[in-house]
């Protein structure tokens, strides 16, 4: 995953076909379909018939924005992934829809990312970035601008790292890569790439807030969104907890990898399909807890948001 050219574009997150097992692909397709289906319905409610032209052009914007670079050092340059920016500026559901569209076109037209693994790519680059990007930013709504911008920057950085971690886990779960190698490598590279993402996101956000603040997705503090904040903070915490643990405990990782070798030689499909991922069979308490938390959080987040929506609609209907 070390970039071969000087181009640090987060294209390293576009997994091609063949690197993830069918079981892992299927699980993440189900997660992606769930979120995207929700996103379609929510944006339809918010935007009505403006939905398609706005989302389509915004998706084209993200694609074009990913071409804009800025040189960092030597011959390398940083690029924008755009997931966090899309979610903050357009709102979380529109952000998910827009990133899904970008990923679909990149895979279908440019073969940048596979077709069978598209569910996982959508999760890594669209859903995680919306969860962390919007969730954290939403937590800072109502505060002064500098705090909001700083939060957006941190959110953008974390979203890139989360995507990298998710790819590492998916590669490991599919038996493609050794966790002890791919995890720190992806983490290291994307911690640097994420800085570029954070800087560009903050600058773009500041520019938009200066010139056309009416266009920014506005959330009144009383509106819903608590679910997003909870999910976003939880996901961000998971990322923050896993990364240093994994880097600081190579022995634990080596033990996991040797267990992995046995598991992957024995069977590919069963542990990848079930949400347990044979966590208990790995026998490492910390790993099982953290893995379960990180991977299951998105499912939990979906449930939380659905419940929040039901609760709010019930409250609305109960008014005289």
């Amino acid at each position: 995953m070390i970039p071969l050219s000087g181009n640090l574009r987060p294209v390293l997150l576009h997994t091609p076909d063949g690197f993830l097992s069918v079981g892992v692909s299927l699980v993440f397709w189900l997660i992606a379909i769930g979120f995207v289906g929700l996103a379609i319905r929510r944006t339809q409610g918010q935007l009505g018939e403006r939905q398609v032209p706005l989302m389509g052009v915004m998706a084209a914007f993200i694609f074009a924005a990913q071409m804009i670079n800025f040189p960092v050092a030597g011959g390398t340059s940083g690029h924008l992934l755009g997931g966090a920016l899309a979610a903050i500026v357009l709102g979380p559901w529109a952000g998910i829809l827009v990133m899904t569209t970008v990923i679909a076109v990149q895979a279908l037209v440019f073969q940048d990312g596979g077709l069978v693994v598209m569910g996982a790519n959508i999760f890594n680059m669209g859903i995680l970035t919306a969860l962390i990007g919007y969730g954290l930013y939403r937590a800072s709504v109502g505060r002064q601008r500098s705090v909001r911008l700083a939060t957006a920057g941190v959110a953008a950085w974390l979203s890139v790292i989360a995507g990298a971690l998710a790819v590492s886990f998916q590669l490991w779960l599919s038996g493609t890569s050794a966790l002890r190698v791919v995890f720190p490598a992806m983490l290291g590279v994307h911690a640097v790439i994420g800085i570029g993402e954070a800087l560009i996101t903050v600058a773009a956000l500041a520019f938009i807030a200066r010139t056309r603040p009416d266009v920014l997705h506005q959330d009144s503090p009383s509106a819903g969104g608590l679910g997003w904040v909870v999910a976003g903070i939880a996901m961000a915490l998971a990322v923050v907890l896993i990364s240093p643990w994994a880097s600081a405990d190579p022995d634990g990782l080596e033990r996991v990898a040797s267990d992995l070798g046995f598991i992957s030689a024995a069977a590919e499909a069963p542990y990848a399909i079930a949400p347990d991922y044979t966590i208990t069979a790995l026998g490492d308490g910390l790993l099982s807890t953290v893995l379960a938390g990180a991977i299951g959080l998105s499912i939990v987040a979906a449930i939380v948001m659905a419940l929040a929506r039901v609760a709010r609609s019930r409250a609305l209907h109960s008014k005289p």
Partner: protein
Amino acid sequence: MHVSSFDHYQGRVSPVHRLDPRVKVVVTVLFIVSTVLLPDGAWTAFGCSWLLLLAATRLAHLSLGFVISRSLVALPFALAAATAVFSVPGMPVFSVKAGPWTLVATDAGVIRFASIMLRSWIAVQMAIVLTATTQVPDLMHALRHLRVPGVLVATVSFMYRYLFVLSDEALRLLRARDARSAMPVEGAVASPSVLWRARVTGNMAGQLFIRSYERSERVYDAMLARGYAGTLMTINPHTMTRLDWLWLAASAAALAIVQLLGRVQLPGPI
């Protein structure tokens, strides 16, 4: 960036071009799934898959060089699979000294790595054949027929329509930046700092966003003025002919045979 730079072959005529796009999409997905499902070391099955791919390429009147050169896009990911060489238990084949560690490659690891690379390479080539033989509007219609939500298909169609327009916009912004010497110069006394460059880049992204947003408003107004009521109409319904069904059945049968080949223990030195 221009549309024609990507669809050299889409306007051609061939047996594959004439197929119903639904058949092409379904066969491509089935082929990729079949390829990914093949177990490690199933060289005969991999070879047969590649032969099927070759047949599709020839029937589509595509040049093999074109397909192969486009298929190299996923090469950086080879590094991810490379770790498999050293981490799958088996008989040691060779060892590499990397600093304080000695990495031992096993036969099972090498087989796993080669299998992953082959699967990925074969799968992406089939996807290339699909995109090279299907016009994008037909591809969108096919997805719609295959029950992909209409909103998503319409959004993707819009994105495709405008991505070249907005990419040109982004290229103009980049050229304007270069023309104003906003990039660091080798050996200059005072080069702009990284933070300044990031702010310029962020402003460009923000500028592009605002232009895109306002463009989308104009697009929407134009559509309203032309009678847009929320759904995109088409005057090109696709119907499945007997030939299409035949292709579908033959492809499914061929893939089933490939799967069998991959799992049955053939006698002989394999």
